[in-house]
Structures are given as C-alpha cells and as structure tokens.
C-alpha cells in the first residue's frame, strides 16, 4: 500500500524533474552549452507567478504570463549573451552561464529580500482517495499540467516544422542554415520553449512547497544536470525517462528505512556511476 502512495510521489517529483530537464536538454542538444542559468529562469518563473498572482488574483493568468515572460527572457539570453560566446571554447559559455545564474539569484535577493514567500492557491480539484493511496489537489495539478505539456511538446517536436528545424540544428546547425533553416529563430524558439517550461516547473514547485525564495534554484541548477546526464545529453526522450527514474530512485530509497544517504545525494551517486560506466546516458549520442 505504501508502494502505491510512493508511486504517486514518484510521478509528481518526476514531473518536476522532467519539466526542468527537457528544456535544458533541448538547449544542450542544439548549442552544446551547459545552461546553468536555466535554474535562474526556474526561480524567475516562481517569483513572476507569485507577483502576477498578487496583482490579478488568478493563478492561471499568473502561470501563463510567467511562462511567456520567462520564455522571452530565455530567448533574449541566447540572442544577447550566449550568441557572442558560442564560438569560444566550451568552457567560456559555461562560465558565462554560471555568472548569469549567480547574477540572477542576487538580483532576486535584492528585489525580494532573503525571505521565503508563501504561495498558496486554491484549485477546484477534489482530494482523491482510493483504497491504498490518495492524491492531493496540488499533486493532481502537477500531473495534469505536466501531462498536457508533454503531449503538446511531443506534438510540436514530431509533427511541426519547428520540430524538424530543431532536429536539423541539433544535428548540424551550419548545415541547417545552408539548407534554408532560419537557425537564429529556431534556436531562439528552443530557448523560449525550454525557459517557459522551467518557469512552469518553478511555479509548480513554489505552489507545492508553499514557498518561493531567491535560492530555490540552487539544488535545481545541478540536479537538472543529473537528469540530463542520465538521459543522455541532448536526448529529450532520455530526459523524460531519466526524470522519472531519478524520482523513483529517490523516493523508494529514502522510503527504505535502512538507507543512509540524504535524498539529494542519490542523484549524484547515480550520475557518477553513469559517467563512469555509461557516459552517453540512456539515449545519448556520442560526442563529436
């Protein structure tokens, strides 16, 4: 019975991991940049939702607006920051990204102060209680939103022109340009989509934990990489599966009383094992 409850927890936690990691993986797949500042966007999304919610009183408006604004900011980050350092050695964009992330976190601290803000909403979803387990309204919210997003993303990536364009850019962006793909627009759109998803994830976590604070992205900034490494860099399918697998490992190992490591250590332990024995991840391409 505990098993079923834990499975629900896996799905909820995994959903959050997937929402964050998919955007990161998409961006890595195209630019080969480790986009640490993704976690800054995640925090931004939570704060934006909180602020917009205070003004409008409507959670859905807050969530959607926050996603759109964060998406634009992500695209601007590509257009006005990354674009200039992409030709440098790969360490340069990485350092730039870390710098962006720290700057963002400090900016939030300056604007909002070092406090935890409560973020509670009421949603018209009933408490679901079946024989062995229950699903809270917030858990249901996370599952529904993630489900919709993943189906939408699958459709966009597999059935539309942008999906083909992204795939071509991820394969070889110079070649993609040579056959007419507007690579600037395509990459900007990838940043937009990835950042919007991160903002949604940040908002959902803020609501779920009922707290939003400037450093909420700290753990996320590196844990998202665990998911991306497990799934294989640049593989979206891998990120989705790895997100749920990592959640499962965390939830079930922590639930097992004899386990001695703290929860956040599990992901890194798994990542180290993967890097040693399966460096391309579950579905990764070989690095050129």
């Amino acid at each position, binding site marked *: 019975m505990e098993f079923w409850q834990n499975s629900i927890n896996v799905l909820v936690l995994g959903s959050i991991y997937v929402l964050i990691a998919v955007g990161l993986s998409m961006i890595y797949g195209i630019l080969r940049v480790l986009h640490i500042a993704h976690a800054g966007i995640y925090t931004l999304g939570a704060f934006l939702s909180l602020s917009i919610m205070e003004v409008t009183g409507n959670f859905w408006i807050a969530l959607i607006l926050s996603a759109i604004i964060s998406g634009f900011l992500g695209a601007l980050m590509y257009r006005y920051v990354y674009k200039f350092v992409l030709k440098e050695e790969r360490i340069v964009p990485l350092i730039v990204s870390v710098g962006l992330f720290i700057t963002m976190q400090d900016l939030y601290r300056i604007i909002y102060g070092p406090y935890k803000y409560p973020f509670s909403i009421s949603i018209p979803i009933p408490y679901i209680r079946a024989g062995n387990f229950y699903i809270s309204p917030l858990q249901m919210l996370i599952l529904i939103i993630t489900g919709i997003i993943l189906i939408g993303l699958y459709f966009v990536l597999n059935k539309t*022109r942008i999906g083909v364009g992204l*795939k071509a850019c991820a394969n070889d962006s110079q070649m993609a*340009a*040579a056959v*007419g*793909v*507007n690579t600037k627009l395509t990459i900007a759109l990838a940043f937009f989509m990835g950042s919007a998803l991160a903002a949604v994830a940040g908002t959902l976590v803020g609501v779920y934990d009922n707290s939003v604070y400037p450093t909420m992205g700290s753990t996320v900034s590196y844990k998202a990489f665990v998911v991306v490494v497990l799934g294989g860099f640049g593989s979206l399918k891998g990120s989705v599966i790895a997100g749920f697998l990592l959640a499962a490992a965390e939830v079930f190992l922590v639930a097992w009383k004899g386990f001695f490591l703290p929860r956040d250590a599990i992901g890194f332990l798994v990542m180290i094992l993967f890097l040693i024995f399966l460096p391309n991840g579950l579905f990764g391409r070989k690095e050129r």
Partner: protein
Amino acid sequence: MIELQKIMKIDRVTKHFGGLIAVNSVSFEILKGELLALIGPNGAGKTTLFNLITGVFKPSIGKIFFDGKEISGKRTSQIARMGIGRTFQIVRPFGKMTVLENVLVPLGKSFYTNLSVFSHSPRENSSISKAMELLKDAYLDDEFDKMASYLPIGMQRRLEIARALALEPKLLLLDEPAAGLNEKESMQLKEYIEKINSNGISILLIEHDMKFVMNIAKRIVVLDHGSKIAEGVPSEVASNPQVIEAYLGRKHKKGDKNA
C-alpha cells in the same frame, strides 16, 4: 539582354583573414543553365569562395550578385532560401535523421521565417511525394527510412545533393562531390549531376579529379593562391601554361630564360 543570361556575377571579390589573402579580386560569371567547374591546387581559395557565395563569410571587398540581386552580406539561410543549394567537401548529412527527413528539412523552407513553424506540418502528403521524387532521382528511394549516417559514402553524397535540390535552387554549388568515391560511384554521380543540369539548374563545381572535371564541365575557372589565373573551355584550360605550372610546378628546362 545579356544581363538576364547570368545567374551569378562575382565582381572583384577579395577576402582576407588577417594578413592572409584567401581570395584576391576574383571576378567571373556563371551563365544560366551552365555547368562551370572551379579548379585549382589545394589552398587556392575555392572553398573560401563557396563560403563567400553562401554567406558563411562576408567579402572584404567586392560584391556577389545572384539573379540580379546583391547577396553579399546576407545570412546563410536567406541565401539558401533565395535558391542557392550547396554540398560540402566532407559529407554532412543530418546523421541522426532518416534519409526522408533529411530532404524534408529544406522542402518547407518558406515556413522557417515566421511563427508558422508551429502550425505547418513537414509531413504533408505533397511534401512526402516531392521528397520521394527527389530521392528517386538520386537512386535513394529504397533507403528512405534508414538513418542517414548508416549509408555508404556514395549514397550520402547523393543524399546531400538531393537535400540541396529540395531547396529548389537555381544554382547548385558542389564541393568535390567525387572525392572518396570509387569508379562506379563516380560514374553514377556524373550521370546524376548531368541530369540535374539538364533540368536547367546551373551548377558550380569544385573538383580535384581532373578526369571527372574534363568530362563534365562546359567551362572551367582556375584559381591559384586566391587569384583567377585562367578561364575557358576544358581543352583551352588544360593546355594553358600557367595552369600547368600551378598544378605541376615550374619547369626548369635548360635554356629557359624566363624561369
């Protein structure tokens, strides 16, 4: 009107990288429907010229006109969409995509410029049938669902050309298409290129394989150390002493006062 006969005019184009002059005031024209070869020893600036035409580099001096419009300074993807297809010296198919998908990428070129990227499906029946037609011309229709990276090099080469043709180009730039191919593959390629050319698409071809060039080209431009040293029909070029010197080195005959 003479002007209308030209598909491309390269007007005193120079490109330097720091102190190195890669292309030095080169001018020539490509006529509509022509198959023009660009030859020259290694480092002559042939591929740099391709990169200048396709917008990878911007000319330091000089202008390039395509179909009457200046294209120097435009972006690579814009130039591609205007109708200049290109293949690279080293085969570069989209390896993680199927053969069919490779050709579908350029087929919807007009949809990449705005937000219709989100609404347009690349797999419309009309696109698929057009893509299959292009693959059939390249003798690749049986391989359409294979991953491009699994094909042998001869097929990858033809796939690259088919993909460039999906842009519906008026001008096709081929960078050493016969490199690394065996005799049979090379013959098949020659046939394919001639077929493309006979459909009215102008072709500019870089090639090292002289036999291949002399067989296929109607006219040849020779570059050496970034400058144009000769231009003409194959027989003229082959007997041009400057060209022979560029390829074989200067002769040191006894009594050669000019040496």
